[in-house]
């Protein structure tokens, strides 16, 4: 089965990132990157990791709607929530427990959350 893992970030943590000087951001990244490299290093050979992307900050989001033929584009994510989507991974695994086993190793599971959704028809 295929699962979409929707990776969220804590909104306050995102806001803190936005406030960082370039030097601070670089230092923070230096802490984060090895965690992700470890995850990819483990998942890569398993063949269970498909498509995977990191999304830019929610402040860069544009939300598009068409109502009665009229298009509106608003600034920001579709909903202001405590946790916001920061990335998407597609996991290909035998069953839900295997997917949960991967989700608990994704770094944001410790600070925000990972939402697992089966991909329909997979």
């Amino acid at each position, binding site marked *: *089965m295929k*699962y979409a893992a929707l990776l969220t970030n804590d909104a306050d943590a995102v806001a803190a990132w936005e406030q960082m000087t370039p030097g601070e951001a670089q230092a923070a990244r230096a802490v984060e990157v090895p965690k992700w490299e470890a995850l990819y290093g483990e998942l890569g050979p398993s063949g269970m990791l498909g498509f995977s992307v990191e999304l830019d900050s929610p402040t860069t989001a544009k939300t598009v709607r068409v109502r009665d033929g009229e298009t509106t584009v608003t600034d920001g994510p579709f909903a202001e929530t405590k946790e916001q989507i920061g990335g998407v991974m597609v996991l290909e*695994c*035998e*069953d*839900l*427990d*295997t*997917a*949960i*086993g991967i989700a608990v190793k994704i770094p944001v599971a410790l600070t925000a959350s990972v939402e697992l959704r*089966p991909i329909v028809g997979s």
Partner: protein
Amino acid sequence: MSSIELTFREGWGRAVATLTRVLGDLTLAEDAVQDAFTIALERWPRDGPPDRPSAWIIATARNRAIDRLRRERTFARKAELLARLEALPTEEEDVSSIPDDRLALVFMCCHPALAAEGRVALTLREVAGLTTTEIAHAFLVSEPAMAQRLVRAKRKIRAAGIPFRVPPDHMLPERMQSVLAVLYLVFNEGYSASGGAEHVRADLCEEAIRLAKLLALLMPDEPEALGLLALMLLQDGRREARRGPNGELVLLDEQDRARWNQARIAEGTRVLEPALSRRAAGPYQLQAAIAALHSQAPRPDDTDWAQIAALYGELARRQASPVVELNRAVAVAMADGPAAGLALLDRIELDGYHLLHAARADLLRRLERTGEAAAEYRAALRLEMNAAERAFLERRLSQLA
């Protein structure tokens, strides 16, 4: 329950588990097993039951599943599933070599990705073999609503990819908690009697005990499984005595102890001892040990309250909750006097819980602070509770005056 019914109950879970493993689909498995039982209902009363009813059911369900699949024209994976079914033994005599897959079935039905009410319903349907009608009656919901609940849960298993297997070691402790909680929910639905006919409730307790026995049998190295079984047996031993002649709730210290089911209590104690000797006491074993101490007292005054208070203290360390603290405070009040208990109760924050007010009322009554006691009884009575509890508190309030 007739011998045929009993065989049904015993054979159902085993057959559903085996067919689910082979077919990889709970609904297909259940349909095949249901067919087998329908055939049994026709034949057994006429020809007498087979020598090995459970094996007969599995062999017949296998054949019915093959027939059903052959009739399907377009079913994906048809050839693969047929081959797997055909690999199952055909002769009843050989079925005993098939591994018992019921534990995998239990873990699938109790998977935390399912809604709690779905877990309970599914476990009773698939593992215990209750009919949808029986489960609907036990939980006081309409039959269509219960059927819908079961369908939703089965659909979720398929859509979310909930596996049919015993979880790996690193997931086992968490999953075990979910299984134990589901079985205890079944028991409490029967024991606490929020409504419904008494015999339906008693049957539910029996089913919960039967499931807990199965779990203890399948997981002999899990002391908490034994702890849960012991807890159920010990509580069930007092079930009859908890009801007065008009169905009212009778508290422990006012129960007629001659009405306790001593065989049940002895069985519970026998189950608990080897579990405790493993020195891995978890919440269910601790609660069972508390229940055992109550059961050992010939009269209320003989209760070893100091030991019970210590066990609640241990329980609170493992499973901090206001309800456990409330019980500890009550035990301390019995061991060291109402003032000591009241001091502990004052530290508990549990808004809107009628039993906290009821406990405070009782201790204030014993301290002869009548006005305050009456106020607490009234505060409790403003909250929700079942009719038996309400009658009890109203009676206590009227006795104050």
